[in-house]
């Protein structure tokens, strides 16, 4: 282990203990550590943006590109400049054009991807659960597959029913949800709770591995660096 590694390990040891100090309650040492991490992450992100985005995609074409590349690079330069106008309350309307472009492109990509990548394939996959030929081609047991498909269909419909808030109103009538939708929604609630439980278990599992890694690091640091240094 060279000197840089040792300094890195020492800093990691100290900052790990400072983060663990939150067990004693919110304190300045914990807040200092959190602010330091946020500052370092923000600074690193800025450097990456300059190094991986601005320099190769903007500076390089402008400085050393062909005439066409320079002309094309003027478009992001102008849009980026207009976006900076958002800083000023007086000139912020100038930034609406690049903002509209960003939001429009982002929405188009997200919606297009969701439709072609999730909605249609998943609907088709749900239909295939009841396709006898497809089941026999991939699954050994027809009855088990049909049962799985039935559970999946019921879970999907019941979960959707739980989020059914639309009502048909008539004058001089108080709203009461239809009984069958309410019952279906309660079944959906069970499916949603199971899904949330599954996700919660995953989050707990991820956090537990992080805790294990930090504790193993602390033990290793004490055994390999701290104790030899003291003795």
């Amino acid at each position, binding site marked *: 282990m060279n000197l840089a590694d040792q300094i890195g390990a020492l800093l990691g040891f100290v900052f790990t203990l400072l983060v663990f100090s939150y067990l004693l309650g919110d304190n300045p040492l914990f807040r200092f550590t959190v602010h330091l991490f946020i500052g370092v992450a923000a600074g690193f992100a800025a450097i*990456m*943006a300059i190094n991986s985005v601005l320099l190769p995609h903007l500076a390089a074409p402008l400085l050393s590109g062909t005439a066409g590349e320079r002309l094309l690079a003027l478009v992001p330069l102008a849009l980026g400049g207009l976006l900076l106008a958002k800083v000023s309350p007086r000139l912020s309307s100038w930034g609406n054009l690049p903002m509209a472009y960003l939001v429009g492109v982002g929405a188009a990509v997200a919606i297009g991807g969701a439709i072609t990548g999730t909605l249609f*394939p998943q609907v088709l996959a749900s239909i295939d659960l009841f396709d006898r030929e497809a089941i026999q081609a991939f699954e050994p047991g027809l009855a088990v597959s049909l049962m799985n498909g039935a559970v999946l269909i019921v879970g999907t419909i019941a979960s959707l029913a739980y989020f059914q808030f639309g009502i048909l109103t008539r004058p001089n009538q108080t709203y009461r949800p239809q009984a069958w939708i309410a019952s279906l929604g309660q079944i959906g609630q069970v499916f949603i709770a199971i899904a949330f439980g599954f996700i919660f278990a*995953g989050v707990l599992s991820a956090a537990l*591995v992080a805790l294990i890694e930090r504790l193993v690091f602390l033990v290793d640091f004490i055994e390999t660096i701290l104790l030899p240094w003291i003795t």
Partner: protein
Amino acid sequence: METDADLPEWLRDAGLPNMAAQEAGEIPAGEPQDAGVPESGVTESPGEQGDLPPAASPAPPPDDQKTTHEPDLEAAALPGWLQSMRTDEGQPPEAAPSPEEAGPLAGLTGLLSADQGTSHLPGQATRPLHLKITANQRLHADLLHNLVEMEGQARPLPKRPALASQQIQRWIIAVVLILAVLWPVLMDGNPAVLDAYTEEAAELNRLVSQLSPDAKVLVAFDYEPAFAPEMEAAAAPVMDHLMLRGASLTIVSTTPTGPVLAERFLNKTLAGHQYTGGVQYINLGFIPGGAAGLLSLVEAPQRTVPYTIDGVAAWETSTAPALPPLQGVRSFEDFSMVLVLVDDPDLARIWIEQASPRQADEAKQTILTMVSSAQAEPLLNPYYLSNPRQLHGFAAGLRGGAAYARMTGRESGEQDYWDAFGVGLFVMAIILVIGAVLHASTLPGQAPAVEKDEEMP
């Protein structure tokens, strides 16, 4: 000019002709009117004899009319807030004006001060107000008044217990969990067998095993540093397998910290393979733009990430050949496999949505695989189980990594965490059950106790 004859009958009945006369200058403002209108100028709704203090008092009568007051009338006791609204009647006369000391008017005397102009608006507090309020409105007004007054009063902070029960719970849980995790780490016992098996990990193992030597693999490092322990533990056996098979790696990331995490992972965790940057692997760095950036990578990788993280041109040009890991690669479909290391379920979904439509053409199909955090597993399963598969194989969390390690004979790396993971999960489950039982025992008919510091005084 309106006269009595011009007034409607209802107005004359209300006893207001004098007001018309006042407006005509016949009666000075502020002179007590007839009994129909209170002196304060405040009238209340019928049936509501509230004692709301007057919002404003009429202007003081001229000196020659003060003598006309009846002697048995007592002076009104005005509240403080109303007193402050009165004009400067009774105040001592101001001292002789002093010359202006600063500014462009320095040296001049008799100037109007800005304060006079703003604080004594003409007509303020001399115009009679006719408030018609209900009892409910008066209740709200009194409440608001009390609230405003309370804001200005210092109150002693309620005493908190030195140790809150929540803090004690936090310490107990932390101590129990830390001891449970440290016990297998410190004690040298027989290591537990990696008995994990998942079908997805087995499929991933099969796909990696079928890769040709020197296959071109695109690896995306899309996780945050906080998830590095779990992600590296899960991805280490898969990446180790890939590197043993001699795959050429092209690294990208849609998170700013991804490129440096990739360098750390390859040069620390997998340093034994001695992969050299620019030869066996290249790091193309950060892809900005989220979903749009990913779509751009899928559509035109050469335009999206033209350089390595070191600023070297990575792709083939008319003047220079491509770097070795990208030789023969001209489009996204030319990669034999795409392996995404991802912690965020939404990011995993975006990868599938942008990359999987490209796989519809089976002749040019790129295999999409993932190593994910355990929290992303529920979302990835439907894509893996769909037919045709949108996700061809994945390993989720430490369990997925352990399953892959066991299948490929790489248990040593996973074993460090596996024992502590098992004990920790068991203890966490017990803590959850105890917490649920304690919570359920307080539910029937017992409202949660309100802490003293939240009570209204």
